[in-house]
């Protein structure tokens, strides 16, 4: 019989690969717990959806790291991340000073900091992707669509060649490299 730990590890690996069944399972096991907690703590169901999805994205980002091994269950991690995210949101809305830390046992100092780190990494990553999207938006056609098809929609060079009217994938690839050169110029333009 498999241990709970192994099952969670497999679930995480599947999540990292973007597997839908694994994601659904984690979703259905955890959403109601967090949604229930949030609605007792001043959030709406719409808040719960946003919050939980963001926590899932933090977990997804974290799971990309092969060395990542959770020291607690997926459920505990998602709950802790959700709480931290919610707290941050409240703090932003109300501009309250940061209250002193109170040790509650379930969230000791070290892991609390670790959650904060994960959230900060996540926020920085999101900001970085936004910059990249902004650079992509500045590209002309067909570059914008080709790069989106390849990177965002995970299309193969064959599919791209077919839908953009290139005679073969090699030609499409050459065009993709030209587009990347333009993207790089825009993206790194702020350096000078």
């Amino acid at each position: 019989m498999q241990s709970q730990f192994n099952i969670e590890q497999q679930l995480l690996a599947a999540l990292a690969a973007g597997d839908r069944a694994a994601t659904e399972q984690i979703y259905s096991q955890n959403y109601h717990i967090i949604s229930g907690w949030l609605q007792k703590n001043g959030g709406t169901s719409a808040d719960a959806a946003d919050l939980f999805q963001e926590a899932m994205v933090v977990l997804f980002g974290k799971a990309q790291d092969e060395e990542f091994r959770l020291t607690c269950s997926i459920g505990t991690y998602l709950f802790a991340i959700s709480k931290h995210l919610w707290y941050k949101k409240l703090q932003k809305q109300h501009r309250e000073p940061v209250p002193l830390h109170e040790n509650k046992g379930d969230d000791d100092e070290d892991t609390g900091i670790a959650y904060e780190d994960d959230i900060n990494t996540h926020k920085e990553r999101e900001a970085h992707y936004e910059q990249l999207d902004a650079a992509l938006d500045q590209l002309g056609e067909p570059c914008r669509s080709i790069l989106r098809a390849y990177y965002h929609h995970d299309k193969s060079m064959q599919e791209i060649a077919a839908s953009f009217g290139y005679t073969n994938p090699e030609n499409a690839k050459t065009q993709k490299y030209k587009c990347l050169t333009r993207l790089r110029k825009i993206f790194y333009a702020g350096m000078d």
Partner: protein
Amino acid sequence: MSLSTNNIWELAELYLAGSLPQETFVQLKARLATDSAFATEFYEATDLIRSATDSGKHKRFKNMLRDIHREQTKKDTGSKKATKHVIFTPEFWRTASIAAGVAILTSTITIWSLKPSMRKNESRYNMISREVKGLQIAQAQQLQKQQQLEKNLDTKTRKSFAPTSDVMKTGTGFALSNNGYFVTAYHVLHDENGYGDSVYIQNHDGQYFKASLVTFNAETDVAIMKVEKSGFRFGKGELPYSFAPAKAALGSHIFTLGYPAEDISYSEGYISARNGYDGNGMQYTLELPVGYGESGSPLVDGKGNVLGLLTAVGSQAEEKTYAVSAKAIMELMHKLPDEKCIKLPKSSHIGRMSREQQISKMEAYTFAVKVYKK
């Protein structure tokens, strides 16, 4: 397959996929180590491809999440959107705010060194170099030995060695040029007990290199040093950051990398006053949590410009951090004889990168400075 900037994207794609032919891979590694212009272009290409790929992956995941959410909450989309009063419960009070407190707690055994000219105000102004005494010496030596052993195991050829005498004080330094010039806080090297016997830097790989003082200005607390080893290079390419001598704006977000302990540490904050301690125009006042041992750490803005170097913290009541502005560093550099001319990079290579990438690029150029006394 040829190595040129014409097919850099293909090289980068194959490299990331791990499918470069062995021969090309070896050639590429050699080229990256020697040709910094090529290396910069190559790493920009791999960074961009990696970011685009990861960003796409995240987008697909988010779309899937929204889809799953729609499916699983088909029935219950009722409009219970009445806003409720927000209650702070203690269990989600943020914990990270005590990170700075932890850093300071771990340094309670240290004795703060004070800048001589500031003694009259010593209770309000503390240099943030770290003095290593008693127990800490033993710990530091043990760590050194351990790191030394680990290093000997994997890099026998590199022949770096750990100094054998006692660590008197530690600070942080950062590169002014890739060939060994660097800057640190003068008080790390010299205090009321005089100079140490020798100064070593220890880089992020744990390797030690001996360094000697080139010039200093005790008043501004800036010292320029050079790694003695000939042919020494801090990292693969030119410095990732540039220097900004003009005063940065009040409120600018800044970060620093330093060595409050054996491991490199990151912290961030903002410029809280245009001038420094007692209105000192050559300094900035910062809201920035730092640990002792971070004297000499670079003060960097979000675009990768070095604005200054950390020198001191205020009393515990104030908790201000002070940094010497980059202008003081540059003025000191200009006093160097021409043959030692250091060419600072004109632009930062990390301006548009994510913070994690900025940090990883800077790590090779930021290191611990250790002063030894027999």
